[in-house]
């Protein structure tokens, strides 16, 4: 099999797995609400800026400052007379990319650390888990704040920091799942065949931990979005003039009594995205459990 074929077949397998997850999700009400929300945000992330009625940074200072919702500006305008709808639409891209990249990094690293440590066991495991405990005794937001203050808030640093912060929780979950699978006899059988550890971890154990990993991944993705949005709120997200939902809310606080729409639109955007992911994940989880719930 040449690399191209392998890549194509791997991609096809991923697509099939994704499609079956979608079908699974659509079997529950939670999934039926969550999926469209997630799809909507994905579309925004890809085409938000193109679809937006105005350029997000276009000022209408003279005539349209802090204007309420109207036909011209459905979600109103902000303190510089920028269209809130356009700013919200174009804010999805950076948030979802940065949060997604961070979550993915954390999941990959955490899975490798957790599974290796759990499989290896003994002293190594003890030491690795102590380090993870130490990492986890900081709220993620605090670590992110400290690191980003030192390194400066650019998308790569944000994603990298989230990745590092997520190693510990993902590693913990994957470790305990690995321990459970490791106690099954087929792992002993593989050892007796003389399979190398890497083969046992990734070929024999990993497929059996996928359900756990899928749940953990969706949890991480939604946390990651919460975290990036919170960092934006604290001024450590994507830097102006690009739009950032967290920052929009932060800036709107000064005139919140007079112009609540400036805060409401991005608040709704963050909320619907995270709610969508959580509902979708919940739907998939429920649907998986359905056939098992027999007598």
């Amino acid at each position, binding site marked *: 099999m040449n690399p191209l074929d392998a890549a194509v077949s791997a991609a096809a397998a991923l697509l099939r797995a994704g499609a079956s997850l979608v079908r699974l999700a659509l079997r529950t009400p939670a999934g039926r609400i969550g999926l469209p929300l997630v799809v909507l945000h994905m579309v925004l992330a890809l085409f938000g800026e193109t679809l937006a009625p105005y350029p997000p940074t276009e000022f209408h200072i003279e005539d349209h400052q802090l204007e309420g919702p109207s036909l011209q500006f459905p979600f109103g305008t902000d303190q510089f007379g920028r269209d809130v709808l356009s700013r919200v639409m174009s804010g999805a891209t950076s948030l979802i990319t940065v949060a997604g990249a961070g979550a993915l990094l954390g999941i990959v690293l955490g899975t490798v650390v957790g599974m290796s440590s759990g499989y290896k066991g003994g002293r190594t495991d003890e030491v690795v888990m102590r380090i993870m405990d130490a990492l986890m005794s900081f709220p993620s937001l605090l670590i992110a704040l400290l690191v980003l203050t030192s390194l400066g808030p650019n998308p790569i640093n944000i994603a990298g920091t989230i990745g590092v912060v997520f190693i510990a929780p993902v590693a913990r979950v994957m470790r305990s799942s690995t321990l459970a699978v490791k106690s*099954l*006899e*087929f792992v*002993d*059988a*593989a*050892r*007796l*065949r*003389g*399979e190398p550890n890497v083969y046992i971890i990734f*070929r*024999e154990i990993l*497929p*059996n931990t*996928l359900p756990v990993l899928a749940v953990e991944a969706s949890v991480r993705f939604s946390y990651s979005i919460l975290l990036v949005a919170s960092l934006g709120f604290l001024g450590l997200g994507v830097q102006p003039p690009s739009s950032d939902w967290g920052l929009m809310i932060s800036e709107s606080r000064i005139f919140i009594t007079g112009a609540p729409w400036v805060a409401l639109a991005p608040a709704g955007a963050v909320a619907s995205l995270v709610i969508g992911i959580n509902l979708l994940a919940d739907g998939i989880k429920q649907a998986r459990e*359905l*056939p098992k*719930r*027999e*007598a």
Partner: protein
Amino acid sequence: MATTITATLETTATRTADADQPLLKVDGLSVTFFTPTGAVHAVRDASFEIKRGEVVGLVGESGCGKSTMAYAIMGYLPGEPEVGGAVYLDGQNMAELGPAELRALRGNRIAMVYQHPALALNPTMRIGPQIEEVIKVHLDLNAVQVTERAMELIESVGLPDPERIAQSYAHQLSGGQQQRIVIAMALACDPDLLLMDEPTTGLDVTTEATILDLVADLKGRVNAGILYVSHNLGVVARVADRVVVMYAGQTVEEAPVRNLFKDPRHPYTVGLLSCVPKPVADEGAVTRLQSIQGSVFPSTQADPGMCLFADRCPMATDRCTGEAPAPVSLGGAHETRCFYPGEVSPDLWDESVEREAPHENGKEPTLTVKGLHRVYGQWQRKYLFFGPKVKPPVRAVENVDFNVGAGRTVGIVGESGSGKSTVARSIVGLVPRDSGDLELRGEDLPAETDERNAGQKASIRMVFQNPTSSLNPKLPVRHNILRPLQKFTDMSAKEREERACELLESVGLDASYMDRQPLQLSGGQQQRVALAAAFAGDPDLIVADEPVSALDVSVQAQVLNLLEDHQRENGTSYVFISHDLGVVRYVSDEIVVLYAGHVAEAGPTEDVLSTPSHPYTEALLSAAPVPDPDAIPTPIRLSGSVPKQHEQFKGCFFASRCPRKLGDVCDNTPPPMQTSPGSPTHEIHCHIPLEELARLQDNSVTTPA
């Protein structure tokens, strides 16, 4: 005070109505569960009766609906199943009872004993209150009387020091003690009907025997009907007065216990009986174990209007596949659901294939185990790294020696905590040993599998207890067989594929199984795939750790026979580990009896199983249930439980429970190894001289209980 209690109990006991009426009548009961994947017909058509004071055994294999039936009688079924037929308690249709009436009945007139006592008891509540709450709910007694009654109950199930027990939590008791507590709880209100759902499954044989004694004792003491549900024919033979056999949700045969075992009239019952390894018939031809081919009629399928056993029955005719048989009475309370009860003969399944003598070759042993020693963990100290030593490491095995000759089978028997699995895992290298030597055909074997070379790995393969977890559920059968071929041979991909198909065929599965997922296979099929995988590297030695204990009796024989055939054809040596003396006796040339990590006795099978034996072997033999109601139970019982794994032995490892303990010498001096003059390889580790042992044991066998 005690008199008032007894008085209250008498009033509750005298509420019986009619003497003629059966206590419990199950009439055409069916239970269908509805799951998202379809209907499951757990019970299809079950009818039987229980009278006061009798024990009815309900036997059948996994999935036959026997447990569902017990819970259906209790009116406790998960979900909202469709229930057909009726259950009458003293003539009262249970379905007509309201929730409050049902609650008043449960724990009071009908009580239940469960399969896993450790799970059936609340882990965070002391034992006393758990027993007391039943009494409080159902009987009108004051607080003092309730406590008194609870103490009485604990004592009545043979537990000494009831006050201490009442103060304990479930995890502080042994499995046998836990089950006694569950029984005490069930007896709390002097029930009319006692349902026991596999109460000894999961307990050690010697513990099981004492619980069975308790059940027999109850029969005489309480005026209740007892339904004893079990998969184990031997257990049922020991306790039941009448036996009901279930298959695929139907009751297929019902008879008084002696009739059922001596003159079975349903082909399935006959089949079941011929699947159990029996004690060697005196000097007679040793016949191969039988198995029932095919698999149970699936519970997901609706009633097909035919005999559900027809597919697997050797005497099935067109009538059997075209029409559903109804139970017919044969007189003498014997009923069978078969069209041809007269033609059912005990050798229906027995083609009396004589077992071919195992070929014995080479004097050089395949495996030598010398002084194997293994402990887990280290001494723990009071302040982590300092302070006095407070807890010794866990002992697993100490000083185990034995040899496995080429083409021979060594059976290792022992109960939980005996160290038998540690021995198995040390041999294959999954558990490193602390000291001792292993030699494979005279060559030193490194301790851990990772240190062994490919040849050594290929030479020693393992078969595990649980076939479902020994095959990776996410990878197809193909993977499990091709992978060892890839590791252990230098075949080309095509050759491997061919060889894999051959291996599958050698275990009775065709090539189409290659692409199945393990979870689509039955337990027996999974274990056969595991065998094929073990055979893949042409090993010299296979270590089989309880290979049939997770399987139903009707398929056990398939696996045992496959192992035997492979050995005869290839001269492979086996180390066969089991808690089941019957199975070990059937497969082994030599036996090692382990207790608490020590060898109690070892030697050729027949020598070990006949007198003189180590007192522990004697107790094991005496405890093992035999599927023969006429078997005279020998009264050797072990009290207490296996020593804690942290305990260190000063004298004999068995001294704390030995029924033949001599005295201080057993407590203070490790037992010497004695070999019998007639058989130099037969060793017994005991202080009692062999002649004395033989005399004691011959006497106790000849005096029937």
